[in-house]
């Protein structure tokens, strides 16, 4: 007997078609175009040279350029260490805020504020108003104390940018991890107290393991956004000195914007997609494996 209220499986698939068409037209066709461009000699500011097939020239130029590898290392170093620091700060601050303290809601709002500041504004504020040796607060404070401050963005460009990323992103981690902490049933914490667990062992053995899912969500979202950081780099160091603070996003911008070289820009974009998807897939698989292990 056929149930009239149930649509057959084939027809259900048809319902997906409009969605698939929209996704393919808006994302896959431009991506295919990017792949096609990556095999062309196509420089916007040299119309006299025309557009011709370049074979693998654009890719070989990128892959034989030692700068490209330092940019990749920069990208993963910047993203990896920033995520680690964000997680540590996120857990620490969330633990501090997870309690019945007067005015806690106000404090939570204040802590979240840096996350809502635009990256370009963050860059300008830190570069000019805080870390500048002449106009910034640090300059005035160091003058009063008689201390010589380093030139942050020249001497430690990547570390300085990393600290700004942590300043901006740690609040997001705090928010997500705090939500996890507040979801831990009160009974579990109370039982651990009755069993004589110290504050430290409660945190390490009970709270953090129960927060794994929340930390993973924060890290995944953080990874997707921090790996393509642009505004902070553009406003503070412009990728310099040299390529010391270039990441892949900024590198693509420079090639396309300054060189107007569509072919090479597209080739870098293709390589970036391959690298990013590989890293994210590996990370996601690792998380999935861990989850499967927990279920067993």
């Amino acid at each position: 007997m056929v149930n009239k209220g149930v649509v057959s499986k084939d027809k259900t698939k048809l319902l997906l078609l409009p969605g698939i068409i929209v996704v393919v037209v808006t994302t896959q066709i431009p991506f295919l175009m990017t792949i096609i461009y990556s095999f062309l000699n196509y420089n916007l500011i040299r119309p006299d040279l025309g557009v011709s097939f370049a074979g693998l020239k654009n890719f070989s130029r990128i892959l034989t350029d030692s700068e490209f590898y330092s940019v990749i290392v920069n990208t993963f170093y910047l993203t990896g260490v920033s995520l680690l620091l964000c997680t540590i700060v996120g857990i620490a601050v969330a633990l501090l805020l997870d309690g019945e303290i007067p005015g806690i809601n106000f404090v939570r709002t204040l802590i979240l504020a840096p996350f809502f500041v635009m990256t370009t504004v963050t860059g300008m504020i830190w570069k000019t108003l805080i870390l500048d040796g002449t106009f910034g607060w640090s300059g005035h404070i160091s003058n009063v104390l008689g201390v010589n401050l380093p030139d942050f963005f020249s001497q430690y460009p990547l570390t300085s940018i990393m600290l700004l990323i942590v300043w901006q992103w740690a609040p997001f981690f705090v928010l997500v991890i705090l939500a996890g902490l507040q979801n831990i049933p009160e009974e579990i914490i109370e039982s651990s107290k009755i069993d004589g667990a110290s504050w430290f062992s409660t945190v390490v053995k009970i709270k953090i393991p129960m927060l794994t899912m929340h930390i993973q969500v924060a890290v995944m979202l953080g990874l997707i956004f921090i790996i393509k950081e642009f505004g902070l780099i553009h406003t503070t160091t412009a990728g310099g000195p040299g390529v010391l603070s270039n990441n892949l996003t900024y590198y693509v911008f420079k090639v396309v914007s300054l060189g107007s070289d569509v072919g090479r820009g597209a080739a870098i974009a293709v390589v970036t997609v391959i690298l990013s998807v590989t890293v994210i897939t590996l990370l996601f698989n690792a998380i999935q494996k861990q989850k499967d292990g927990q279920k067993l």
Partner: protein
Amino acid sequence: MKKTSLLNSLLLLLFCIMLVACSSNETQEEVTGETEVNSNSEDVTLTIAVGNNPQMPALEKLSKEYTEETGVKVDFALIPENDLRQTLTNHATIGGGQYDIVQIGSYEMAFWADNGWLEDLEPYFEKMSDEELAEYDREDLLPPVKQSLTIDEKQYGLPFYAEASMMYYNTEVFEKAGIEIPTNPTWDEIYEIATQLHDPANNQYGITMRGQPGWGMNGAVFGSMIHAFGSRWVDENWDVQFTKDPNMARAFEMYKKLLVDAGQPNIVSTGYAEASQLFMEGNAAMFYDATSLAEGFNNSESKVYGKFEMGLAPTDVKIDNTGWIWVWALGIDPNSKHKQEAFDFITWATSKEYIERVAEDSGWGTVPPGTRQSTYENKDYMAETPYASDVLNSLNTIKYDEPSVDPVPYVGIQYVGIPEFAEFGTQVSEYLAEYVSGATTLEEALEKSQNAVETAIANGGYK
């Protein structure tokens, strides 16, 4: 597992959108442009793309008077100066048509005309009556300024304002230290004076210059130093000179030691805005930069008001004026539907009459400088800007097409007038900043610069 692959696909799509954004924005802007131009079939409305630099709001304001006089409306698209170059290049490469008039710098002028992206203005001048020609007075345009907008004896842009690079001196600091302001100093002399006047403990720096990477940032200062030291980017056969010419190494060394031993802190994050702020606040004894910044120092809010002088750019092997010249000009898009009206507007905006009108409106100290001899013959202008005769002298003695003591296959002083320069000039400016910050040695900086320029020259088919 299904969930895993679905998430993977979603992430892939997310990145695709991000990465292809660059190539898709041109098409969007083209569509917008057509709508704007087509909507004005009866009344003429000119669309003009300009940078958001200080002279432009005045032009926008006074253009309303032009509309009242002629009936031609003018729509302004104010684009951040840093984005102007890329935005206009994108429009030109897809056939243009959105803007009737574009603000263009002397660097782009060098190859935009060759690419057919600018209208030759000579036929329009030929159509002018004798009276109109006399009124516009092309002979009044300063020769080096006019020359930087002329290719094969055809002028492709009319100068709106122009600047040279000069050395600014804080007279108060020099007087206190009992040091005389040098006339036509060498870079070595500047270094000696700068180290004597350098007192960072009291926020007093010997010199301030652009240190932030970028061809228009530290690259502009260093580009003029390369030629001052008798070197050149490439020789007449397009052979790159970074590792081959010892004078190039001397220019690198001087730039670094000047800033490290006697310059501002935060060297590589100092652009022209930060450097001019330091000079304006009285924190720097000397400042090597563009003459157009003098207007900001010459008002009562500046701490160096009435306390600064300007001198020619320092020299070394090259003893003629080593300063750079930069012209912001107005040109016409060859695909504009209102080319004659556009020409009439740009002749008005670069005329003597316009300069006088700006003076009436906001004072002689604010008129667009550096374009016309008559501006510098005006008593009111000379009275309000005590540095004007030095600026005129600098502008008139710059040889834009002979930047180096040795022959070169390019034009431009702080840049090489070829399309590829924007990229390799920026790369060299980054290696310079890296060297200044101590992350690389001189040899490494020269080697990296050599490779970057050689690759660009080879790929561009110059050699």
